């Protein structure tokens, strides 16, 4: 039986979390939802995920800091971590990739954007 790929969605906005969950489900993924960085780090310590969608702008700990801790403290160096952020100007894009993100998902997202990221960074589905 083929394993259902799993994504962790980290966003402080409830409507966004549920929307991403709904899109992911429609393209055959399952989603776990966290509303802040601490919860995300805890979830990543317990379960394994194929992809993390991480909102950059959150009130407590920002996405960049969480990404650094995923890489350095949890040692998940190969895990695709996607920065989920408002429209990036070209120079922001380069900076975020240098900070350890694997890719960018630009808000406002479309269905095709999410599917594209999942296809690019997710496990190869037979």
């Amino acid at each position, binding site marked *: 039986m083929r394993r259902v790929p799993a994504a962790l969605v980290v*966003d402080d*906005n*409830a*409507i*966004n979390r*549920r*929307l991403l969950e*709904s*899109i992911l489900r*429609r393209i055959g993924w399952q989603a776990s939802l966290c509303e802040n960085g601490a919860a995300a780090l805890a979830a990543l310590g317990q379960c394994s995920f194929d992809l993390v969608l991480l909102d950059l*702008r959150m009130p407590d700990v920002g996405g960049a800091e969480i990404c650094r801790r995923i890489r350095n403290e949890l040692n998940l160096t190969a895990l695709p971590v996607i920065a989920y952020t*408002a*429209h*990036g*100007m*070209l120079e922001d*894009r380069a900076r975020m990739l240098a900070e350890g993100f694997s890719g960018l998902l630009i*808000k*406002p*997202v*479309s*269905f*095709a954007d*999410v599917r594209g990221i999942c296809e690019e960074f997710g496990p190869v589905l037979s």
Partner: protein
Amino acid sequence: MNAPVELTRVVSERRAWIVLWDEQVRSRLAGELAPQGWLEVRTFPNPSEALQALRASDEPPDLVVTGLYFEVSDGFDLMRELAELRPAPAVYLLSHQQRAVIRAAVSLARERGLRVAGYADFPVSAMSVAQSLAHYPLQRRAVDREMDSLPLERAELQAMVDARKIVAFMQPKVNLGSGEVVGFEALMRGLGPNDAIIAPDRLIAPLSANGLLADATVLVFEETVEFLGQCLQEGFPVSASVNAPLGLISDPSFCRLLIDRVERRGIDPSWITVEITETEAMSDLATVTERTARIRMMGFNLSIDDFGSAYSSFMQLSQLPFSELKIERSFVTSLHVDPVKQAIVSACATLGTRLGLHVVAEGVESPLELRAVRSLGCTEAQGFLVARPVPPQKARNWLRACEGIAQAACAELSPD
């Protein structure tokens, strides 16, 4: 009120004036027009005489067929005065001049707000001119004409704002790659007596002149935020655009009000794009940068509307925090048969995408235009071909029903 009766009235009211120096052509054309249902056909040898008659007459023409070159005065003078009439007549241009001059005259007429019923260069038969005019759409209904000539007054506008009769109509935007509906633009409409829809050209300038545009914009914004919240909660990842004059964005209390509405509904502001026109974006760089940066700081996206209608400098474009560029509709209309428009749209699309912006073609009304803007590199399209603006409830029903339709429209465009 009885629509067919009014229509009959209008038909019998159709008046055509012919202003041509060549007497033979003039009378031949008059002879051809009369049997085509034109009640009154008057002829003049030059613009000066036509203008004299115009000043003396309280029954202005619905159509003026005019040449461009005359011994005294010319067709351009005539058009300037015709444009002052309410309602302004349609013009049909007939000239010996080279095509480039006629085309310039056509765009000038449009610029001045005159409807252009057509144009032809000599030699052309009077019969073919008359025939092409026979099918020209009737003037607007008489009642509308009377209403249109009266600008809305402050008290009426204030009452509309108080009763929330300023509403948002939603027009969808599709992604040209995936065929997905990715967003809606909220367009302001007024609801007059009997909830007759009042178009923006009668609404926005008077609201602005009476200091009510901020209140009206907030009403549109609130309706948009509610619409957006419902769409997102239903699982549709769509964004929404709202037009706001730069003057309003510069008011911090207005911006706080916007962010308050968004937060109250629990929406991430990046689902909302604020559109400002290119003309406004190209005023003083320091002021514009401050105002637009503030909107971005709050998390809204920023779009430059009617791109191509003003004269952006590359400096301004590179400095301002835009996320989207919308190509002025006049470059999109019939671009599939116009190499000049194709060159302009292609350049805008290249510039925009290289700057990392969404590039939206506005006013797409035919499959050929859609195919063209897509192949020239635009990323999104908006226009009657996709859908007309409709009230939010209808837009949501449309969204539910249409997931397949937009995709089918784009599937048609698969490379052949």
